[in-house]
């Protein structure tokens, strides 16, 4: 069997389409089970762990390949700092709204969800940037 570059490229492309459908599909199923069927987080832990693991591998694979966090949008240093804080802030706000929709006005839980999501997303982004900087030192 020949190692055909066109076929390798098309196989990768097909796998990528499959992965995107799989990732989005599992995410939509999770949202449906949480917000429509009102199932608890523990009821969906199996689906969530598969989705979370796949997302983590995808995220860190991009980092170790040196892909900038904001690619394909190019940003200067100041815009990158805004991005680094704004996206975790938006994620944390969405989580706080989700908590509100699930259990009503429970300020303690909403704040808890907000703070944990903000810090975890910020940490992920900082680690991502650090990995990309290491990649740049080694490869360019």
């Amino acid at each position: 069997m020949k190692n055909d570059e066109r076929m390798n490229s098309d196989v990768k492309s097909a796998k990528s389409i499959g992965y995107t459908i799989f990732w989005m599909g599992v995410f939509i199923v999770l949202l449906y089970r949480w917000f429509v069927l009102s199932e608890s987080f523990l009821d969906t832990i199996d689906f969530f762990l598969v989705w979370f693991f796949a997302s983590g591998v995808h995220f860190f694979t991009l980092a170790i390949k040196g892909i900038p966090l904001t690619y394909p949008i190019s940003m200067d240093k100041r815009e990158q700092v805004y991005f680094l804080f704004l996206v975790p802030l938006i994620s944390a706000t969405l989580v706080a709204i989700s908590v509100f929709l699930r259990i009503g006005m429970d300020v303690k839980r909403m704040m808890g969800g907000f703070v944990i999501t903000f810090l975890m997303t910020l940490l992920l982004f900082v680690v991502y940037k650090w990995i990309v900087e290491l990649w740049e030192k080694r490869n360019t």
Partner: protein
Amino acid sequence: MINILKNSVKQSRSEKHITQEELAEKVGVTRQTIGLIEKEKYNPTITLGLKLCKVLNQSLDQLFWLEEEENEK
């Protein structure tokens, strides 16, 4: 034996006194990709190769060539 794609992008770029960033801008890729091409860790597509030739004012075989190397396996 395996064929390895070699290039003289770094040398040609230095002769033209342009930075990786400027070359990247001219051919429409990121600085990181130019760095990888110069270190021969990434083989550009024929389209990108031809764009590099145009900007660096070189022919394709001046800028890129194949070398045979022993397969380690």
